[in-house]
């Protein structure tokens, strides 16, 4: 019945519509126990993913462009991120600052993010304001004005963001060094924010070319979650985006990273009180069969204060003030990044030895079923807690659809995790957490704390 009613509504929408504006239903995916994601595809390639959720009178409207720093090239790093900034500037119909002013007056919360594989624009609005947001997002997808003064000013802002996140931040600069050392061919080697020299050198023409190439309906998905109905949404999206032509997307030119055959290591000196260490192991892409097992293994080792690493490094040995992990959720193989900060006069070498010892244990000794269950429970809580708001749901749907093409993959991962065994954990530990496949950055403290050093 639902299908027949939808067919009828879509037929009405498509009646007399130009080919680019024709819309069709492209599938339904269950999203958790009570919700569903409906996928629609327009003639110009634009995808719309709708998850109706009438629990609050708000709507999350996220636009995901399938362009990130992986689509850049040496000498032009940071362009995707700079462009994310420029998207809040002038359009043909809106003067400088008008885009944000209109959103603010509508009570919207808006933000954006760029990463290795994608760029995301998020807007959450009271439901009555949805038509305005659709118009504004369609306007900046196709009618952005890029002139020298805006580009110059935004380059300065991004340079300041880089100083904040990298130059004056020990962890930021360590992480950047680690990725640059670990990747020698693949585009993941450069930071999403870009090298400072590249940021400073961008021209307005660089930005215009990037915009024409990547900002088009056939390179975007719109994720809408909240108190909205299908028909009301589709008719407005059709009106706002239906006239936009698709672009000719370039063939992606990313080189696979060759296997790393020996450990790489470097030492930095920073104005910090204690030594630090970052270790990056080459690990598989998020869509790989081993990724869920590796995530679960990371929970066992690093998740919370009952984890093996915390118990060993922070509590028993008392050589670290903190230790944590990040498992790369990327389309291509990335890094599992471990970071630890030493306590007092303890050294990065001591941290590495203690981390190695715990990794050796999971390679040699079976992990108990209790530990595995605990890691699963932590993962489940994390997923559910991220779905409380419309914005959280939209981010989860958009992320998994952009990197895996499956909007409900978060729930599929929970099922995958339930099938992971102790044998899987041992296998992935032995396969991926091996010294020859890692890069190590050690940080020496320029001003070691005298009191602690005396202990």
């Amino acid at each position, binding site marked *: 019945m639902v299908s027949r009613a939808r067919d009828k509504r879509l037929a009405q929408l498509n009646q007399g519509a130009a080919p680019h504006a024709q819309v069709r239903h492209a599938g339904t995916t269950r999203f958790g126990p009570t919700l569903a994601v409906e996928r629609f595809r327009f003639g110009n390639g634009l995808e719309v993913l709708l998850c109706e959720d009438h629990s609050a009178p708000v709507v999350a409207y996220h636009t995901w462009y399938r362009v990130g720093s992986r689509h850049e090239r040496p000498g032009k790093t940071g362009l995707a991120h700079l462009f994310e900034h420029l998207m809040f500037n002038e359009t043909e119909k809106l003067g400088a600052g008008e885009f*944000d002013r209109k959103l603010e007056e509508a009570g919207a919360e808006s933000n954006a993010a760029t990463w290795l594989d994608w760029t995301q624009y998020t807007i959450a609005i009271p439901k009555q304001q949805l038509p305005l947001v659709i118009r504004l997002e369609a306007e900046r997808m196709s009618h952005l004005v890029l002139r020298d003064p805006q580009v110059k*000013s935004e380059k300065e802002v991004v340079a300041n963001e880089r100083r904040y996140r990298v130059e004056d931040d020990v962890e930021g600069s360590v992480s950047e060094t680690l990725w640059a050392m670990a990747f020698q061919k693949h585009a993941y080697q450069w930071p999403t924010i870009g090298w400072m020299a590249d940021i400073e050198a961008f021209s307005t023409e660089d930005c215009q070319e990037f915009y024409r190439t990547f900002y088009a309906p056939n390179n975007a998905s719109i994720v809408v979650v909240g108190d909205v109905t299908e028909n009301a949404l589709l008719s407005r999206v059709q009106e706002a985006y239906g006239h936009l032509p698709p672009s000719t997307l370039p063939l992606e030119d990313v080189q696979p990273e060759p296997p790393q055959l020996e450990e790489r290591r470097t030492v930095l000196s920073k104005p910090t009180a204690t030594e630090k260490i970052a270790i990056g192991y080459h690990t598989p892409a998020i869509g790989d069969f081993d990724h869920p097992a590796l995530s679960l293994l990371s929970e066992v080792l690093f998740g919370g204060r009952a984890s093996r690493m915390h118990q060993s490094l922070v509590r028993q040995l008392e050589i670290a003030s903190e230790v944590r992990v990040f498992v790369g959720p990327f389309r291509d193989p990335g890094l599992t990044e471990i970071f630890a900060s030493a306590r007092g006069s303890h050294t990065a070498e001591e941290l590495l030895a203690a981390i190695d010892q715990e990794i050796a244990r999971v390679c040699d000794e079976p992990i108990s079923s209790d530990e595995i269950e605990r890691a699963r429970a932590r993962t489940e809580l994390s997923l559910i807690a991220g779905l409380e708001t419309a914005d959280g749901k939209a981010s989860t749907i958009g992320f998994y659809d952009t990197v895996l093409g499956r909007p409900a993959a978060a729930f599929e991962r929970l099922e995958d995790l339930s099938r992971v065994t102790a044998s899987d954990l041992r296998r992935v530990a032995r396969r991926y957490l091996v010294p020859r496949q890692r890069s190590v950055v050690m940080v020496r403290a320029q001003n070691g704390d005298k009191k602690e050093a005396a202990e």
Partner: protein
Amino acid sequence: MNVQSIDLGGRRLLIESSPALPLVHVTVALTSGALEDPAGKEGLTRLTARAMRRTGGGLTQQQLDTRIDSLGGSLGADVSHSTVSFNGTVIARNLDAFLDLMIDVLARPGFSEEELALLRRETEAELIEARDNDRALARRWFSRKMFAGHPYARSVSGHLTTVPTMTAGDVRALYQRTWTRENVVLSFSGDIDAAHARASAERLLEALGSGPRLADQVTDPTGPRGRSLVFVDKPERTQTQILIGGLGSHPRDPDHIALHVANTVLGGTFTARLMKEVRSKRGWSYGAYSSLPYDRHRQAFSLWTFPKASDAAACIQLELELLAAWCEKGITQRELAGAKRYLTRSHAFAIDTATKRVGLAFDALIYDLPPGYYEGYLDHIGEVSLERANAAIRDRIDPEHLVVAVVGTAAEIEAEVRASIPGLSAHEIVAHDAD
């Protein structure tokens, strides 16, 4: 708001049921916080809360965390000057077992000597580690100078000189004095019905001891006199962290909402004056905001930017000019209308989940907000006139009485920064690793 407020023998319980997700949030908070730290024991309230979290029911830290994790739960302790809150979240099917653990933590902490010694050493390491965070350094020194002589100047985390002196006796004494059923507020939200929440709250309260109600003996701070600069000297800074501010207001002040609207025009949004002038026109700082937070007493009003080192002096000069213009000329009718629309409409995101709605009601109790503050919030915003907004700025904010806190490399920019502040009456340079 759909929050139920229930009186349990003088104790307040807040509940909002929502089956939207199979999660339950539980908060148990004290109506006092780090202001209870005895002199010379700064950080004791925080250390006590963390020790409770690690020794509840006589269990070890690892036993407690293992059990909480296994239930699909999380339990954190947050400490501020005015409150200590234990915030728990758990997958609904495991709520009762999770509450048993919370009761152990809140009512039956073991405070073992071994764990306290570990915790003291961990805290010392964290205090040293915190020096890596330039923004936190700026906030710490700003507060210290802003509230000099007032308890708000005291550090919630403590100092390297105070933390090692904290004994098990200190911790037990503070716990027994503060963690009584007379001094707690509770809330439940999410996938739990009212009867279950009430029974759970009663179980929690019954387990706690009894004692006198803590009295708030803190007076309102008076704020700084004249203009002063505290420069936190740290090597190799390519960028600065800058806080400029004076005394703010409390929601009990009749003009608080009017000032809140006026502050939105100055630096509360992405198109506010500060962002427009500092970021959009000049590209000097990634962010440029002003804020007017509330606590149980008047807190600080402040401007926050982080320009590169060579732009710091010019940025401070510009901020002072913008502040002076805001104070002298006020805001315009158009700006007022825009700010009111923004605040009214975006309020939807302060109340879009049961947990957020309960959180606002909770704040109203903890921070002694006037009756109906959030229930009438939209009406109060709507009633703010241009005259009231501009009068609130004139009456509350004095640009001649400010603290400027800067984190940067003194040898490179301190003199220039000092020269950028007209009428500076005091200035000092402190080392970034000073306790």
